[in-house]
């Protein structure tokens, strides 16, 4: 990693800021899909209008500015700048060097293209070499098999399993906390270089 290496550019996607006008319409569509919404938050799913999404953008940027503990990115295709997902770090704990990572690809047609894996790599590099965090956490419900697979492939390991902590579709599911230490990530990078 050199200073001149671009931090936010991947092969197919890049990490970018929010585009209020264009993104709100698209993200509003995603919120109608429970498969997108449920893994993201424990709150009951409900669709949002573009106006509500725009309000959320304002809240996100306000929180980023005021707390310095949130880093929110959009995931966009390099070729045409189209919005395909979001990735963010919440609850950045500077004293202990920890943060929570969330990632989601909106349109089912954009899933299984490796966009999330690429975005995850970019965000991990950002977290470990720019924010200089010590570790990263991610929380996932056990029904989110694709999400668990994605994070495990990226080197996260299961650390906590809160049994039956979510109730959806009439059954209780475990909530799994995954984590990766900077030292583990660095080891991975070295083996990639060799």
């Amino acid at each position: 990693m050199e200073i001149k290496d671009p931090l936010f550019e991947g092969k197919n996607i890049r990490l970018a800021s929010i585009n209020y006008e264009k993104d709100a319409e698209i993200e509003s569509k995603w919120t109608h899909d429970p498969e997108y919404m449920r893994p993201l938050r424990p709150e009951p799913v409900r669709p949002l209008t573009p106006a509500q999404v725009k309000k959320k953008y304002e809240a996100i940027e306000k929180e980023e500015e005021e707390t310095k503990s949130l880093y929110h990115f959009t995931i966009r295709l390099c070729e045409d700048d189209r919005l395909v997902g979001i990735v963010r770090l919440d609850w950045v704990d500077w004293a202990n060097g920890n943060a929570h990572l969330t990632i989601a690809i909106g349109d089912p047609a954009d899933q299984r293209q490796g966009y999330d894996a690429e975005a995850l790599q970019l965000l991990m590099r950002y977290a470990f070499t720019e924010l200089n965090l010590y570790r990263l956490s991610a929380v996932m419900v056990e029904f989110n098999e694709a999400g668990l697979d994605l994070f495990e492939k990226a080197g996260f390991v299961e650390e906590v399993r809160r049994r039956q902590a979510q109730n959806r579709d009439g059954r209780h599911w475990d909530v799994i906390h995954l984590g990766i230490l900077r030292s583990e990530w660095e080891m991975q990078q070295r083996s990639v270089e060799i």
Partner: protein
Amino acid sequence: MNQDLFTGNLVRLTTLDIEQVSEAESRWSRDSEYWRLQAGETYRPYSVQATKKLYEKYVKEDDPTMFAFIIRTIDDDRMIGEVGLDGIHWNHGDCFVGIGIGEREFWGKGYGTDAMNVILRYAFTELNLWRVSLNVFEYNPRAIRSYEKAGFVHEGRVRAALNRAGRRWDIIYMGITCQEWQSLHS
């Protein structure tokens, strides 16, 4: 039907008397060991006024995802600590519990465990929650033992999540489901 939902063997849970609790909490916050045993946030002492503001906000907002109580001894009505449920997700029946005994002379004598038993009974028989979660730092074995006694089961550890006193410590997660609680108390 238990007529005395808020009373245990050693302690009872009462409402937040804002004046009194702000004074006590500010005093307790000067005890860095107490603070670091029960809070993950970076330690600093809090003024009575700052503490009061937090409590006033809590009371004013009447947040339906939080229930906080003062722990008092049954013997002489002394305020010795606090216990509360927060982050309640009503759709899942999940929540976290937090507890702190600020008065050191009451450490290690069963007061915390008793308060935990009372709030678990409240969580499972009045709020009808499905499970209660907590986390605790690995350098706090007294608390871990107390939670085990109350019926909490180990659910994992977030590795090296705290950096304190010059080294890294795990955060341990524990949980109890309503079935587990019922089978302990039937």
